[in-house]
């Protein structure tokens, strides 16, 4: 159950997407989100759908990985779809009973929204599948570095993020270990009502927090021992460099943006 969590999971493969500069990937992901919200009809959405599909194919990350990251979102997709089906009243009425009616407009809006959410999830998981967490936080640090002018320590924030990501698997392992230990003492996590189940988690959560704090202390000592003093004057082993591939990818995304704008103009808006 816990090992299904895919946030920040890197999928190792040799591909153009993996080789791209993390900063560019981050910018393109944000750009993608902006463009997909600009889409006003199925024609412009199709452009973004194709862009998503091509990106996934080029990345060489197997499709089942994307399905895995999509699985937890399915309820959200279904709920938004249901809301759209029942609340949007456009086009011809297909069926109606009591106060509820379903229209063609409602169905197509629901479909439109679902495709949009799926594309969003796919592209953002593509970012985490093809980028190592450290590179990703490094990229965030670089992109946000203008904020240093406002006396916000971007390096500290990025370091905190790196550490948080680094410790997710460790903590998951810890949860499994403590759960087993408490099960061995007869703890029951599977039965009982909601409140009882929440209570049953206490013997797991307390040791988990205790050990998380202990790890934090140990880590801070270890960092101090290696003379860590924040980002000032710190150089990097891996320098980030933009290459031709990055600009080519940017070109493709900008072209898609242009395509979406044009298609929005030429065809009737859906939403």
């Amino acid at each position, binding site marked *: 159950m816990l090992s299904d969590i895919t946030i920040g999971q890197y999928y190792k493969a040799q591909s153009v997407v993996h080789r791209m500069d993390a900063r560019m990937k981050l910018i393109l992901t944000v750009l993608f989100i902006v463009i997909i919200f600009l889409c006003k009809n199925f024609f412009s959405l199709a452009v973004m759908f194709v862009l998503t599909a091509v990106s996934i194919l080029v990345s060489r990350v197997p499709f089942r990985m994307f399905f895995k990251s999509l699985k937890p979102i399915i309820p959200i997709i279904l709920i938004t779809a249901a809301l759209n089906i029942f609340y949007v009243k456009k086009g011809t009425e297909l069926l109606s009973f009591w106060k509820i009616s379903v229209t063609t407009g409602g169905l197509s809006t629901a479909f439109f929204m679902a495709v949009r959410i799926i594309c969003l999830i796919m592209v953002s998981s593509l970012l985490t599948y093809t980028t190592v967490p450290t590179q990703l936080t490094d990229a965030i640090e670089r992109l946000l570095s203008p904020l240093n002018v406002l006396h916000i320590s971007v390096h500290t924030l990025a370091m905190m993020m790196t550490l948080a990501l680094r410790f997710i698997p460790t903590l998951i392992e810890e949860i499994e270990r403590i759960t087993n230990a*408490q099960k*061995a003492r007869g703890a*029951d996590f599977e039965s009982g009502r909601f409140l009882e189940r929440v209570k049953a988690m206490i013997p797991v959560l307390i040791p988990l927090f205790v050990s998380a704090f202990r790890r934090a202390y140990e880590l801070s000592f270890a960092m101090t021992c290696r003379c860590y003093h924040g980002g000032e004057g710190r150089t990097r082993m891996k320098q980030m460099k933009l290459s031709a591939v990055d600009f080519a990818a940017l070109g493709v995304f900008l072209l898609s943006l242009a395509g979406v704008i044009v298609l929005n103009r030429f065809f009737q808006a859906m939403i």
Partner: protein
Amino acid sequence: MKKGTEDVLLNNTPILSTEDLTYIYQKGTNSEVTAIQDVSVDILQGELVGIIGHTGSGKSTLIEHFNALKKGTSGRVLLDGSDIWADKSKIRSVRFRVGVCFQYPEYQLFEETVAKDIAFGPKNMGLSEEEVNRRVTDALTYVGLSQSYAEKSPFDLSGGEKRRVAIAGIMAMEPQVLVLDEPCAGLDPKGRATVLQMIASYRAKTGCTVLLVSHSMEDVAAIADRILVMNRAHVAFFDTVDAVFSHAEELQEMGLDIPRITQLMLSLREKGIDVPANLYTVQQAYDALRPRLKGGSRHAQ
């Protein structure tokens, strides 16, 4: 053979058995790992078995099968002659009968007081309050902590004391079989001696069957009746301490730390001095070498 060992082995009714137990991690993927393979052992009523093996030899996976935390990919686990997975609704009662204390158990303490933490297991068993209190008191005695510890916070204790409180938490369930995974890991020599002493006296008092997982031969040899040696997912040896130590050279090849005194005996044998290889205490070595030394000195005269 150790005193008392014979009695235990003669009274040979198995309490916990495995039949061709196999467990494969991530079965069906290309990263399959066989943790244990075809393990068939009989643990007898009242004996103290030391389970040893190199890191990754499958000993921890094996004990997770004893209290039904893992279900074998194939094979069975029998407790008192009946399959523990026969009735899924009784899995919890299996865990009360086979008490497992995992590595570094001090990290599972969570209650405000030592007494409450020890009471967690017995309370889950649904015992009456008096019974729970009696067991907490007894468990504290078993691990050699005075009753004044009962109202202390477990987080204020020293590492060794926390370890003992955690072990008391399992003992308080009064399991028929007590399984301890590396109970001495990370303790100083004095702490190790205390814990081993505590386990031996607990067993003497209760007559409970004890399984002691360790990678230290020295610790296990001192108190075990029989030793189960795991090597690469298989059972390498399962015999009395003396019999297992007669394979001292093979044990060394498996990457196990045999006692220093046994190492010394082995190197004496290499030098052509005929001493038994299955010695594991200084006393035994003394007894074996004494006649020779006397003979030697007579020769010099």
